[in-house]
């Protein structure tokens, strides 16, 4: 396979997700210097194919050759990373939302080993070329959709790739930004004619301008060729039509025709007056006005984040407007009115279905919640099942259904109670053109036959054209409203898209943006020497490692909840647990039942009163009372002195004092028993001395309490708790940090760039080690100053030990995060794995020396016990380096083991 002009060769590639086939036997090749497109609706396998070509996903069957090299070999992939750029699907998915535009670009530049000067020069050029220069300091998360995509492109272009892979770069972006995006690509292309661009898109209009197309459907390749060739092949005039014609299982339907809307002085169904919504200082919806008549289909057209959803939420009563008002059939919208809600059907972007219920169960649940009588409900459900063609999937679980069916079910659910108004928030995103047509057929019937008012939002132009009237929305404002024809003719445009672009250009805000761009746009000079001399793929690059560390540190700082938890959580928990786990037994409350009432019995009882351990609470007079005060937990022990106590004692008849101890807390009961015996013995000795009946005892037992002479819990417990906290908090923060990237999708940057495993792992670990060392210092200060536990040994030994230990526990977090896929699983997984061994088997509660069996094994193979010896030892015993050598070695051993396992289990490609 050595065809140099063909940059990408895909040979018989098949890919499965579990049982589901995603790609079936795909073979294609792409010529150098072309713009190649993969077309087809969502879920046909476009992204999978791009992922495989980019080397981000692991190839299951078949081969992929890039630049005549087989990328199945990891050495080849590592080399080629420098020549490929991959921009995943989703607005700004591989960007870091809290980092600024400039910081994002710098991060990518560092990953590709560019030096500071190259980096700076390159970034400035790209920013100028894309018109992002004025926004260099803005966090990526606060950019508009179009700007995010431009930034994504900049990040992809930072290392001058030879192959640029873009996965749906313009989905959800407003038409003006889309146009600008393609102008930018064309400009770049004109200066680097050798660069090959591979794009996936669901917009057929965009695909018209590519050099070559591959149409995908259901994981199969339908056809390849230039746009013209595809149209000719199917004898159609547009790509949209051509694509429908190519689909094998569906015979092309007659074009959807919606009968024109008859106004006939119908009443106003929805009216918005000066509707405004602000979130803090951000105005999401700005003085929006419109009137929608009964039975009308009213379209809301705009890009992601322009305020469509917020407006709809205000109309459904989910959000109260900040200003202005909304009325439904002349009545002001009242979110609390339940009857209002019976008039509204709502279908949200995410298809609000219960994924775990079957189709029928979903319908049944909603019928019940809308209080339909059961016979009517059954009738209605069957009617909807057949009307929406859902009968044959009625008993299937919703989660397993394709998007198109979910969408129809969602509509069925929204209209089950025959609402007069239907509010649909982008109901068709991600659904293929045929399913979309079917959906619109249903909407048309509802509107024309049942007089349902439909308010629908979309970012598809051809859908907007089907609405009776459209309102163009941008940045919270309605730019224009009217029928499609009126809007088009008003701007003398050829189609709705062009009209929309003109409206956008006119709006003041974009005008400024445009000005900015015009003044700054200049073709980037291709002057920079490509930094490809830096291809050292296998060795550890400190620059990349540092890039990861720096970025992670910035992200933690900018996430207030995580940052506060990381800094204050341990201190809070130490204080709570330091007080909470106390084994001190003091001030034990007791009741006295003195049946003798002589000086002798009182003398005996005085012995207890005098002890600092006991505190007399009650004097009681009978057995029932004694039982009751124990059951109620009012006292922990009852002392009963029998009648005739004094007399018997004098006679030498050994009267028997009864003690009842509450055994509910065995540890306390045991200690109480010990203290009672002690007080008793003491009393006897006192009596013996004063009476001089017996010889004094010769045997003495001298207890020497070491390390903690006052035997107060906090001296032992607080340093122990410190060890426990430094086990699970660093592990937890670390585990979440990696899984977050998996969940948000930015992990792709690790797959697609020349980053090695250790660079990724250690780079991410570094800031958490620093944070954990800060935690150690604050815990140390709380222990020392707040709890007043003096440190007897060497602080520096403790410091070094703690640093090593948090390195080991963060490594444990990394290991856990290589297995888990969601943040929730990582959080609870870490808790379960770390909490039992670090509290129960580390020596915090019972000494390690006393553990046996499973407990002993757990304490041997978990690092907590080794570190607990270090903290408790240095704080209380002044343990020296000589005695702790083994513990230090063990902690280092755990770090090495955890890291090796993480490297072993962290794939460099997505499975």
């Amino acid at each position, binding site marked *: 396979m050595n065809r140099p002009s063909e940059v990408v060769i895909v040979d018989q590639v098949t890919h499965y997700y579990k049982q589901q086939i995603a790609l079936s036997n795909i073979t294609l090749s792409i010529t150098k210097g072309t713009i190649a497109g993969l077309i087809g609706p969502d879920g046909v396998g476009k992204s999978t194919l791009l992922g495989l070509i980019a080397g981000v996903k692991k190839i299951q069957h078949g081969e992929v050759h890039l630049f005549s090299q087989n990328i199945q070999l990891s050495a080849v992939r590592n080399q080629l990373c420098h020549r490929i750029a991959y921009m995943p699907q989703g607005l700004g998915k591989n960007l870091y939302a809290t980092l600024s535009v400039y910081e994002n670009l710098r991060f990518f530049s560092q990953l590709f080993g560019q030096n500071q000067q190259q980096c700076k020069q390159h970034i400035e050029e790209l920013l100028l070329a894309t018109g992002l220069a004025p926004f260099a300091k803005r966090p990526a998360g606060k950019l508009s959709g179009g700007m995010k995509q431009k930034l994504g492109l900049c990040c992809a272009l930072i290392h001058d790739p030879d192959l640029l892979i873009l996965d749906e770069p313009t989905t959800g972006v407003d038409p003006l930004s889309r146009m600008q995006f393609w102008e930018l690509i064309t400009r770049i292309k004109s200066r680097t004619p050798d660069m090959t661009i591979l794009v996936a898109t669901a917009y057929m209009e965009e695909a018209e301008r590519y050099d070559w197309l591959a149409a995908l459907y259901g994981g199969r390749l339908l056809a390849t060729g230039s746009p013209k060739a595809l149209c000719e092949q199917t004898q159609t005039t547009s790509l949209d039509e051509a694509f429908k014609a190519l689909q094998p299982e569906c015979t092309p339907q007659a074009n959807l025709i919606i009968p024109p809307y008859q106004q006939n002085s119908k009443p106003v169904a929805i009216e918005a007056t000066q509707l405004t919504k602000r979130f803090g200082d951000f105005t999401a919806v700005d003085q929006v006005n419109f009137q929608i008549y009964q039975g009308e289909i009213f379209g809301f057209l705009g890009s992601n984040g322009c305020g469509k959803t917020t407006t709809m939420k205000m109309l459904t009563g989910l959000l109260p407007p900040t200003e202005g008002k909304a009325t439904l059939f002349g009545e002001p919208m009242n979110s609390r009115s339940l009857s209002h809600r019976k008039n509204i059907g709502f279908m949200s972007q995410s298809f609000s279905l219960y994924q775990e219920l079957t189709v029928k169960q979903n319908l049944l649940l909603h019928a019940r919640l809308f209080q339909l009588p059961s016979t009517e409900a059954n009738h209605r459900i069957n009617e909807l099942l057949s009307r929406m063609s859902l009968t044959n999937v009625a008993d299937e679980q919703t989660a397993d259904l394709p998007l198109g069916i979910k969408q129809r079910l969602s509509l069925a659910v929204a209209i089950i109670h025959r609402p007069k108004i239907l509010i649909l928030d982008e109901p068709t995103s991600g659904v293929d053109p045929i399913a979309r047509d079917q959906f619109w057929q249903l909407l048309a019937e509802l509107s024309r036959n049942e007089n349902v008012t439909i308010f629908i939002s979309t970012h598809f132009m051809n859908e907007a054209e089907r609405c009776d009237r459209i309102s163009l929305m941008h940045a919270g404002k309605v730019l224009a409203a009217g029928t499609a024809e009126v809007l088009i003719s008003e701007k003398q445009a050829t189609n709705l898209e062009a009209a929309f672009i003109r409206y956008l250009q006119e709006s003041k805000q974009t005008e400024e943006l445009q000005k900015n761009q015009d003044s700054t746009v200049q073709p980037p000079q291709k002057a920079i020497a490509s930094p490809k001399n830096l291809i050292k793929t296998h060795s550890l690059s400190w620059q990349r490692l540092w890039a990861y560390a720096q970025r992670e540190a910035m992200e933690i700082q900018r996430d207030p909840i995580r940052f506060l938890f990381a800094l204050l959580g341990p201190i809070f928990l130490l204080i709570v647990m330091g007080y909470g786990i106390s084994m001190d037994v003091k001030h034990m409350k007791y009741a006295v039942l003195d049946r003798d009432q002589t000086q002798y019995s009182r003398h005996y009882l005085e012995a207890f009163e005098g002890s600092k351990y006991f505190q007399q609470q009650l004097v009681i007079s009978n057995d029932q009372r004694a039982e009751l005060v*124990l059951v109620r937990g009012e006292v922990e022990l009852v002392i009963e002195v029998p009648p005739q106590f004094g007399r018997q004692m004098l006679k030498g008849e050994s009267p028997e004092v009864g003690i*009842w*101890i509450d055994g509910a807390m065995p540890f306390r009961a045991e200690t109480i028993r010990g203290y009672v015996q002690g007080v008793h013995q003491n009393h006897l000795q006192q009596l013996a001395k004063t009476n001089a009946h017996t010889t004094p005892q010769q045997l003495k*037992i001298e207890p020497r309490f070491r390390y903690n002479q006052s035997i107060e819990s906090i001296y032992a417990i607080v340093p122990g708790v410190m060890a426990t906290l430094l086990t699970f908090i660093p592990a937890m923060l670390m585990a979440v940090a990696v899984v977050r990237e998996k969940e948000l999708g930015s992990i792709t940057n690790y797959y697609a760039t020349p980053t090695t495993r250790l660079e990724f792992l250690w780079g991410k670990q570094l800031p958490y080690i620093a944070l954990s060392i800060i935690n150690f210092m604050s815990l140390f200060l709380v222990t020392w100053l707040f709890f007043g536990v003096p440190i007897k040994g060497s602080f520096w030994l403790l410091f070094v030990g703690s640093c090593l230990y948090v390195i080991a526990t963060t490594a444990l977090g990394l290991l856990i995060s290589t297995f888990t896929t969601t943040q929730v699983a990582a959080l609870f997984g870490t808790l379960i794995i770390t909490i039992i061994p670090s509290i129960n088997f580390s020596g915090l509660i019972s000494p390690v020396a*006393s553990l046996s069996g499973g407990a002993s094994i757990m304490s041997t193979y978990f690092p907590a016990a080794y570190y607990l010896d270090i903290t408790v030892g240095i704080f209380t015993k002044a343990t020296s380096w000589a005695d702790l050598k083994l513990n230090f070695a063990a902690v280092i051993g755990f770090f090495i083991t955890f890291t090796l396992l993480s490297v072993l289990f962290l794939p460099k490609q997505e499975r």
Partner: protein
Amino acid sequence: MKFLQSVFWLGLKEIASLRQDKVMLFLMTFAFTVFIYVPAKETGLEMRNAAVAVVDEDNSPLSRQIISSLLPPYFQNPHFITFNDIDKTMNQGIYTFVLLIPSKFSQKLAHGLEESVQVYIDATAMSQAVIGLDYIQNIITNEVTQFFNQEDSENPLINLNIRIRFNENLYSSWFMAVNQYINVIGMLAIVLTGAALIREREHGTIEHLLVMPLTPAEIMLAKIWSNGLVIVLASLLSLKLVIGEALAIPVRGEIGLFIIGTCSYLFAVTSLGIFLGTVANSMPQLGLLFLPIVVVMNVLSGGITPLDNMPPAIQYLMKIFPSTHFVEFSSAVLFRQADVAIVWQPLLTIIAIGIVFFSVSLQRLRKTVGKNLS
């Protein structure tokens, strides 16, 4: 009527959702089995297996007799070490107790001279230090007395008869099991309801519910009864199988009353869970919020250390948490066989706290739902 129907149907939906949530089901099974069994079985606070060493400089029949009576289950077999080893081994935490029997110990005592045994105790081993010393003192005194055959000397002036109530043999597994059981119930109730709410918010289905003719109260009550029921059933199963069978702990006290208490407690903690679900914006945030709250509930509710031992400020603070009252309630019912007449106060307090959390969450629910989803 309509109200109850909606609550019922929505609750059934909750149970169906939970059935699909593998992570939660695993967490629940794990918590009700391992989290109860392992601590109860493996970590007693009672004196067991204490590591002890002896420096026997006397090496007489008496000293050997003393040493041989340091027996399991209280002590491990004693190790013999030399005087110079004491510091090193204790510093490394190898032994909790070291006995030093001086030379000529037996001889001196026989001649009526005063002689002492020194007991070195690692006082950082808080759970054993005091009790262990107590045992050692008794053992030595008894052995010495027996050795010199002093039994027939006169009776003690006063006899002491100590009876332990409610847990005669002081099995710490009873205490640990019940304690963990209470912790697990609270932990799961918060996680399940909090996560159920966040999941609906993340999937957008909660908005869907709010657009329908349903009130937030209905949505909340549905979550409370369904998740509460699941936990009650799982906890009863665990009470029977894990605590009753596997750990063989006799469950005494009025079970009916305990179930009523558990249900009231679940009402309070599930409401707390929903409250947290309205405070957090995502699952990870819920996780981070959940951790300190659960630790506080587990550690400071009086289960491990009695409230009286804590600083007054913490005692007052802990009165806000339903767990404090539930610990009081369940230890009275399960250990001391208390009846309603005795425990009505904590029971009512739990319900009152539940009502407060419920009303606050109700207020927050509608407010937070719209706000966070843009």
